[in-house]
């Protein structure tokens, strides 16, 4: 067909034939369609389109899937936002140490039976750690062991195991400004939570102290609120 067309293309006969066909096609287009049949080709909708409703749209699997995805993403964002709402300098380290508390066994510590407040001298004399002092609120707690170790950032952390309620204390260097080296201080006690553990943290003289307990913040609040005898 193409070969035949290309052979005759441009010839007077072919042009004449094309003109003839176009002219006939133009007249054919003018042939009237019966009115009743023409109605079938009207642009009106014979079947009215179903009304758009929120309910129907929400049942659409694609919309449903997108909605669930958006809710999940929003939930993650809200969770992250809320969990970092109460962040303070050193909170990241405190959370890591709560993980350490959860995995520590008593045999990993050197057995020491004393009052927690007295271990400051031990840390200073044996390990050269200054200001690793247990705050007054927790100084009277009896210890069953302690150790000093380096965390993943080579900071020296003191860990004390307390007899009461399997509580653990951590003393670690406070976070510092990366430019000036100044200690980033925060007032009072702050709480962190990690995998069922709760830590109550305070900072003093460039050293953070954390009392960690397996439980809720309320369990620690009683000790912090307790006036020193």
């Amino acid at each position, binding site marked *: 067909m193409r070969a035949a067309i290309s052979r005759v293309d441009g010839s007077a006969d072919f042009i004449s034939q094309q003109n*003839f066909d176009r002219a006939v*096609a133009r007249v*054919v287009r003018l*042939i*009237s369609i*019966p009115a009743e*049949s023409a109605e079938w080709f009207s642009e009106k909708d014979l079947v009215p389109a179903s009304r758009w409703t929120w309910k129907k749209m929400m049942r659409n699997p694609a919309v449903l899937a997108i909605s669930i995805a958006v809710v999940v993403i929003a939930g993650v964002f809200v969770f992250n936002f809320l969990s970092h709402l109460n962040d303070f300098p050193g909170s990241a380290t405190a959370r890591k140490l709560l993980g350490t508390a959860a995995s520590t066994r008593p045999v990993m510590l050197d057995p020491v039976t004393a009052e927690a407040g007295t271990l400051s001298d031990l840390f200073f004399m044996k390990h050269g750690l200054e200001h690793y002092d247990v705050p007054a609120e927790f100084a009277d707690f009896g210890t069953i062991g302690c150790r000093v170790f380096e965390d993943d950032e080579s900071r020296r952390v003191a860990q004390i195991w307390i007899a009461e309620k399997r509580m653990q204390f951590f003393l670690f260097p406070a976070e510092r400004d990366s430019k000036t080296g100044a200690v980033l201080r925060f007032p009072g006690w702050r709480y962190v939570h990690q995998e069922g553990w709760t830590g109550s943290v305070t900072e003093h003289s460039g050293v953070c102290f954390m009392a960690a307990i397996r439980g809720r913040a309320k369990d620690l609040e009683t000790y912090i609120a307790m006036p020193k005898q």
Partner: protein
Amino acid sequence: MLGDSRKAQEVFHATLREAAQRAAHGELPEEPFWLFREARWRCLEATKDDLQPEAVEIDEHDLGVTAASQIERLDPVQLAIWISAAPDPQRSALALFYLDEFDYRDILDLAELKLNELSRLLARGRRQLQAWLDAKFPQPGHA
């Protein structure tokens, strides 16, 4: 195809009814143009018992240079009747070709023709139409 608007309407509605029923049963054929093929067969069926064109030799003329102007003077209804009066498959070939909606391959498929058959039918149809136009609108100096 029919030259009769009432019959055309009946065929049209019957074809659409058939399509609606098939659609309702989920049995719409996947092949393209099945609706047109169905309509064509219904047209042929509708004219089966009508008076058939006589098998006579129809004049044929070469296409003239003034053919386009002759065609413009033609009443569309008269052209429709002229095409519908042609014996099938020439009628189908002319109707489908001058509807200007299908390419050659579609027409071959719809009218169940071979390429050389379609070519011959169209060529003869043009020459016969030209002869009819010459008879209807004689051109001065044309024999």
